[in-house]
């Protein structure tokens, strides 16, 4: 599997961060441009909401900027940013659940693909089919325990190796493997259960 967070990139990242610490605004801009798509993508996968993901990614960049002078160039900068983003998103999810509980309102962050208008284009059926698959995936990964869900998202949708997932989550590679294994078992059981429900 290709390592999407290459060492070559991280060296340059540290240089950009070093220049950022010296007050080089352009260096920080480059750092943001380089990683914004991936970071916003990760946050969107975890939070399920685009606007919230943009806010979360922005917070991660601001934290990176704030720590530019104190972060030691160890490992890959982007792994650190991923870790901050993951923790930030999980905290947001917990806060969201608390707010939801207090206000007794449905979660505004939930995706509702079925509510979006479907046009009359020839590929409308294909679009509907895609949305059905997205919804099924949301349901499937949503039924997983949080620890397994995060590992699955990082492995399946971010394409990260066990080592990097472990670094991001602060767990061993063995724990990553175990959680992914459990997640896949969970999905299998859900699939079998859904199939038996249909056949009844």
């Amino acid at each position, binding site marked *: 599997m290709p390592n999407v967070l290459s060492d070559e990139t991280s060296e340059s990242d540290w240089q950009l961060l070093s220049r950022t610490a010296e007050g080089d605004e352009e260096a920080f801009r480059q750092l943001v441009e380089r990683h914004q*798509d991936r970071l916003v993508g990760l946050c969107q996968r975890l939070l399920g909401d685009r606007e919230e993901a943009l806010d979360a990614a922005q917070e991660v960049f*601001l934290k990176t900027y704030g720590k530019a002078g104190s972060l030691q160039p160890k490992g890959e900068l982007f792994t650190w940013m991923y870790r901050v983003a993951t923790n930030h998103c999980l905290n947001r*999810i*917990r806060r969201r*659940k608390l707010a939801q509980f207090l206000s007794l309102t449905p979660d505004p962050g939930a995706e509702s693909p079925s509510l979006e208008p479907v046009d009359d284009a020839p590929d409308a059926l294909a679009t509907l089919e895609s949305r059905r698959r997205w*919804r099924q*995936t949301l349901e499937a990964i949503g039924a997983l325990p949080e620890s397994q869900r995060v590992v699955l998202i990082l492995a399946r949708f971010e394409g990260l190796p*066990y080592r990097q997932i472990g670094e991001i989550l602060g767990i061993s590679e063995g724990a990553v493997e175990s959680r992914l*294994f459990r997640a896949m078992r969970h999905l299998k059981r859900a*699939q079998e259960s859904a199939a038996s429900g249909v056949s009844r």
Partner: protein
Amino acid sequence: MDRKTEQQLIRLLVGELSDEAAQNLRLRLENESELQHAFTALQERWQTLELRPLEAVHPSFTSRVVRQAVTGLSVEAANLGRSSPLWARATAAVALAGGILVGALLVSPAESEDWTAWNAVELTQAEAYWETLGASSDDLAQEDLQ
């Protein structure tokens, strides 16, 4: 199938095996139909996990982040500052606290049950995804102990 073999299959699926180990496992897959069947099912399960494609971030995002970093504002602070002055936020906070208190006093247990029942009916599948998010923090600790 034992857990170790299944974990090896997952490693093969995600590209976590060394070349040699992957080659050995592929040889086994050719000769063991049960193993082959399990791997095919695993691959299908993995590939059916599909989410909406991500859009590229708008260029204005970069400028916004850099501007806020340079001016020293956090996202929350920036958003609050944009939306209302201090006195309005303080009033809103007091009103919110009062509302929660009044709400807690007014909502009877029966009404709460009604709301739960209604919500269960109206809950969309995607919303159900997020409903489950916080229910599993104990799983993390339990799993690490195993």
